[in-house]
């Protein structure tokens, strides 16, 4: 307990900048009552940074500030600040800000003998005392080197100035131009040992990237990475997105894809809320259409959608979607859907990321669409793109925003390999492929992966109809997977075969029947033959019997005629 109290007493007091993001990196702001060096090349935003520090200090923290400008006049400073929405005139009038331009006549000044900068001290002192300033900006102190003789005197005077400012307890920002191989052109970083912030404005592949780095911060921990920053109509903002981790919570809520049969494929319920969905496929496979269908479903659920499009203009996209029966106009009007169209080459990845995050923060959408993400891949910057997307995905997950990316893969390549660099970021990955059979291309869809659900392993053919997307079963038979006309042809062929078989059965049954009839007829014939033969045989038998009788009779007769004792008997027989 005692230790803790002691520790807190010794913690470095900080002066909040209120510049978006910077206070997070520096753990609360710039060192209070000490000088901070802000250095960077031309046009990297040093003056703006310093000005925002003063204006926010004056407005939000009740710390009046003095701006000593060695480059711009008071009028120029005021005019520049107007574009950021700062009314410096008003602040000056209310004694919140003191602007002072120090003009150095380069080359007009002759020098003779020893001098000091007491005049500058007096001016700064006067300014501080006039408004009770707590913050001071010296922009750009190094200009003195070009206007004043004898750098040895100047250096010792600047050292004295910084000590003096520190003793006065004002939080000071000193800006300086970056030098070759050194932080500042004249090495003034050696006087400012408390905090050094480096602003960088570099150009990679013809696109500019702004980055900020806290080079040192004595007596305090700070983020050490390069953080992208933005300068736009709202001024200076730093985006410490790299500090995000994997500690976001996951949602169990499921949201419809807008395509009923696709929902079915994803174990019946669709995507997880807050998950990352990727649809990849070759050109014209309907990636944007699937995205739009999802947009429509989301808007119908009264969710807010932010649609970043990098290849089509919003109006073109809306028109095209109308042709497949998805009308996005009503959602645009009600404000549930907002488009943001930029060319990927418009600015660098970091700036894209920063802009996107800023827009997401402003608009607070439930769903974010990026169409397509591989537009960022220029040359061999896969790793950078992945890092950018990783940071975006982390950010979106933390905010529980469902992310929907599309990715254009080049034909002929293995699609799964093309997108492998971002695979690990993706929760649900739908693959669209052209199935080229019989002189036509048809669209097939399958779920490559979908974390956390039992998804279908089937390929579905899908059709873009005038009432949206329809998924059909593909023909899976002995001849493989068939789609489109080939599927229809195969189905017809199957039907014909079926018919043929049925006819065959009928024919066979008929034949059997005939055979039976023939058999029966034969039986009949045989019987009649038999009967005929039978009567014939009986007849013969009768004759034979008669013959036997006659023979007997004759015998009797003969006997009678021979003996005469059987007279009666033979007469009887004869009569019959």
């Amino acid at each position: 307990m005692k230790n803790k109290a002691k520790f807190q007493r010794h913690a470095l007091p900080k002066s909040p900048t209120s510049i978006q993001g910077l206070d997070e990196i520096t753990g609360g702001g710039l060192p209070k009552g000490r000088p901070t060096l802000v250095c960077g090349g031309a046009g990297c935003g040093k003056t703006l940074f310093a000005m925002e520090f003063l204006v926010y200090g004056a407005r939000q923290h009740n710390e009046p500030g003095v701006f000593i400008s060695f480059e711009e006049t008071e009028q120029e400073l005021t005019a520049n600040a107007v574009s950021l929405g700062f009314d410096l005139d008003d602040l000056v009038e209310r004694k919140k800000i003191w602007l002072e331009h120090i003009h150095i006549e380069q080359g007009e000044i002759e020098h003779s003998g020893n001098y000091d900068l007491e005049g500058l001290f007096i001016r700064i002192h006067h300014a501080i005392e006039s408004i009770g300033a707590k913050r001071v900006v010296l922009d750009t102190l190094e200009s003195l080197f070009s206007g004043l003789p004898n750098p040895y005197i100047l250096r010792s005077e600047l050292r004295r100035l910084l000590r003096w400012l520190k003793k006065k307890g004002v939080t000071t920002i000193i800006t300086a131009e970056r030098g070759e191989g050194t932080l500042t052109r004249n090495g003034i970083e050696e006087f400012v040992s408390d905090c050094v912030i480096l602003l960088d404005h570099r150009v990679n592949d013809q696109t500019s990237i702004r980055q900020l780095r806290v080079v040192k911060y004595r007596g305090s921990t700070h983020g050490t990475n390069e953080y992208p920053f933005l300068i736009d109509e709202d001024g200076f903002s730093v985006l410490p997105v790299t500090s995000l981790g994997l500690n976001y919570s996951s949602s169990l809520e499921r949201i419809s894809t807008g395509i009923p049969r696709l929902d079915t494929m994803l174990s019946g319920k669709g995507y997880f809320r807050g998950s990352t969905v990727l649809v990849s496929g070759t050109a014209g496979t309907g990636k944007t259409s699937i995205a739009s269908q999802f947009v429509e479903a989301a808007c119908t659920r009264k969710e807010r959608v932010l649609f970043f499009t990098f290849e089509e203009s919003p109006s073109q996209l809306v028109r095209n979607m109308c042709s497949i029966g998805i009308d996005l106009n009503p959602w645009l009007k009600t404000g549930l859907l907002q488009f943001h169209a930029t060319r990927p080459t418009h600015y660098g990845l970091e700036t894209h990321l920063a802009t996107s995050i800023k827009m997401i923060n402003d608009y607070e959408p439930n769903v974010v669409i990026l169409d397509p993400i591989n537009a960022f891949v220029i040359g061999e910057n896969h790793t950078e793109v992945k890092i950018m997307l990783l940071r975006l995905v982390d950010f979106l997950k933390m905010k529980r925003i469902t992310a929907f990316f599309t990715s254009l893969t080049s034909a002929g390549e293995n699609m799964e390999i093309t997108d492998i660099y971002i695979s690990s970021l993706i929760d649900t990955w739908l693959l669209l492929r052209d199935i080229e059979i019989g002189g036509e291309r048809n669209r097939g869809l399958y779920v490559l992966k979908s974390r956390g659900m039992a998804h279908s392993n089937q390929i579905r053919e899908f059709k873009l109809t005038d009432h949206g997307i329809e998924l059909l079963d593909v023909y899976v038979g002995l001849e493989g997977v068939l789609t489109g006309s080939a599927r229809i042809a195969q189905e017809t062929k199957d039907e014909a075969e079926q018919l043929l078989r049925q006819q065959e059965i009928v024919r066979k049954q008929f034949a059997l029947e005939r055979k039976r009839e023939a058999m029966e007829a034969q039986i009949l014939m045989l019987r009649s033959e038999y009967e005929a033969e039978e009567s014939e045989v009986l007849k013969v038998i009768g004759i034979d019997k008669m013959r036997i009788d006659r023979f007997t009779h004759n015998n009797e007769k003969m006997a009678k005629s021979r003996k005469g004792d059987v007279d009666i008997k033979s007469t009887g027989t004869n009569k019959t």
Partner: protein
Amino acid sequence: MEIKQEEKAHTNRLKEQPKKINDDEWVLRLYVAGQTPKSVTALNNLILICEEQLRGKYQIEVIDLLEKPQLARDNQIIAIPTLVRKFPMPVKKIIGDLSNIERALVGLDL
């Protein structure tokens, strides 16, 4: 102390008759911050130069910025001591205690 007196006399003279400056009379203004060795040296050197080169046709005005800090802003003074040649035109500025007489003469166009 003598210098101080003289300086005040000069200043007074200027204040009394600000518009009665002769065409060939030089008006020199020396900005100092209190009685520092550097400012004393500067004034001594200035008087020395003037007495040699401009005897009888010069005015020296010494301005102590500790008393009137506002004047530093108005006249864009940062280094001390600074000598300003107000007249003849154009205005010239010389920084330093004028110990390098040669450079001072160049600076004053003498």
